[in-house]
């Protein structure tokens, strides 16, 4: 049985979505649980993707393919996991802040977080504080993730956090931020709960934020 876990992890690393779909279905047929396939196979692969990306041994297109394979596996496993009452990591509402049209970085983080087991509500780019607030009310996420790529738009992250406070929602969510001009100092200054410097760190941070909660 260890063989199938290894093949799942390799399939994720090599970004083979079709192979993952087949392997997950085969594993379920053989009586392995959704949780086992996820924890011992898919997540092992995705963790290794994070390590290699940080080390500079994997590149963005490869990470995207790995994330796609992960999503293929999760499409099958998620409904089973939910039905079995397995504890999920929760939702993340993700968006690039108002005035900023950069989509890619935020999508990368979203995919890595999805790979880590979160459910993502992707609000897109140029997202105003009101839209974040509505999404929090509707989806009840554990985390709100904000991205800004310009020195001129990063201020909007602070404004959004203020708006969450005013709406009385700040205490019910963790806030994480990222983007080219953002750093830890800025993240602390605007009262965010954490900062990730790249997509895998964003996913790691998200896991830390929910385990600390």
């Amino acid at each position, binding site marked *: 049985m260890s063989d199938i876990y290894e093949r799942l992890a390799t399939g994720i690393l090599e970004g083979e979505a079709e192979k993952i779909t087949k392997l997950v279905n085969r594993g379920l047929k053989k009586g392995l649980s959704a949780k086992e396939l996820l924890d011992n196979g898919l997540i092992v692969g995705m963790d290794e993707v994070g390590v290699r990306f940080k080390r500079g041994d994997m590149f963005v*297109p490869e990470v995207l393919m790995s994330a796609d394979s992960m999503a293929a596996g999760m499409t099958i496993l998620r409904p089973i996991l939910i039905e079995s009452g397995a504890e999920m990591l929760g939702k993340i509402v993700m968006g690039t802040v108002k005035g900023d049209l950069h989509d890619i970085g935020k999508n990368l983080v979203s995919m890595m977080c999805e790979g880590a087991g979160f459910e993502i509500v992707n609000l897109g780019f140029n997202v105003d504080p009101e839209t974040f607030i509505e999404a929090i009310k509707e989806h009840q996420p554990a985390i709100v993730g904000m991205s800004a790529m310009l020195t001129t738009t990063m201020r909007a992250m602070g404004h959004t956090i203020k708006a969450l406070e005013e709406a009385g929602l700040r205490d019910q969510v963790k806030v994480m931020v990222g983007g080219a001009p953002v750093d830890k100092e800025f993240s602390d200054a605007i009262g965010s709960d954490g900062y990730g410097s790249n997509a895998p760190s964003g996913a790691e941070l998200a896991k830390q934020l929910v385990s600390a909660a």
Partner: protein
Amino acid sequence: MAKNLTTVVSSKTQTVEINRNNPTVIIGERINPTGRKLMLKALQNGDFDMVRTDALSQVAAGAKILDVNAGVPGADEIALMKQVLSTVMEAVDVPLCIDTADTDALAVALELYEGKALINSVNGEERSLETVLPLAKEHGAALIALCMDDDGIPATADERLAVAGKIIERAGKRGIPIEDIVIDPLALTMGADHTAGFVVMEAIQKIVAEFGVNITMGASNISFGMPERKHINSTFIAMAIHAGMTCPITNPLVAQVGIAVLAADLAMGRDEYGMKWIKAYRARQKEEGK
């Protein structure tokens, strides 16, 4: 095919003519704190030495226009823009490209600038058209127009052509001549979408065929997420010049970029007797011999 248009920008003492028959005009991108932690810190501390050094080194490396951006989070952009702009105007004679998303900072910068500036930028969003075009008209400035609008950045070349057309039309209605508009078709990251480069090449060709306008691009972003980015960037820049790009916004201090531009100009028949190429070779040799 539309006729090739000439965009003229100037400083107090220098005039630059951007045209498809002339060698490529490099707009130096370095005076910008975005993604440059050292410059950000310097500007926050009111230290303008780095701005001065970057202005001089970019011009020495062949930049014919310099982009000037003073967007520092939490700072008074109007005051900072004035200081950065004055510093650059004192340090070098080349025309400048005023890069800000803040309309008030733009207005103040245009007031301060001596010559015909290049504005970076207007786009197809209603708010942008309504605020930036009147300022360009008032000051007789040329302007870079980004191919995006209220719906974001269009996925296809035809849609980007349509946004370019819309901005040119709206500018025309305000009395801004088409030759004063430089279109940026927006190079997205090939690391996230491998067709991004192809789409932007197609957009350049279509926009040039339809309007004959000059084309600029930030050409460093295209390789984000990929290994050995400088090889991608230099090849991409040469291909974009063939497609019709005339004034890339890039870092002239990266030797490979400058070399790619010179080789592309030679291949396009814009370097008479290859003298620019040979001169640059001798300069590099001299540098290495030091």
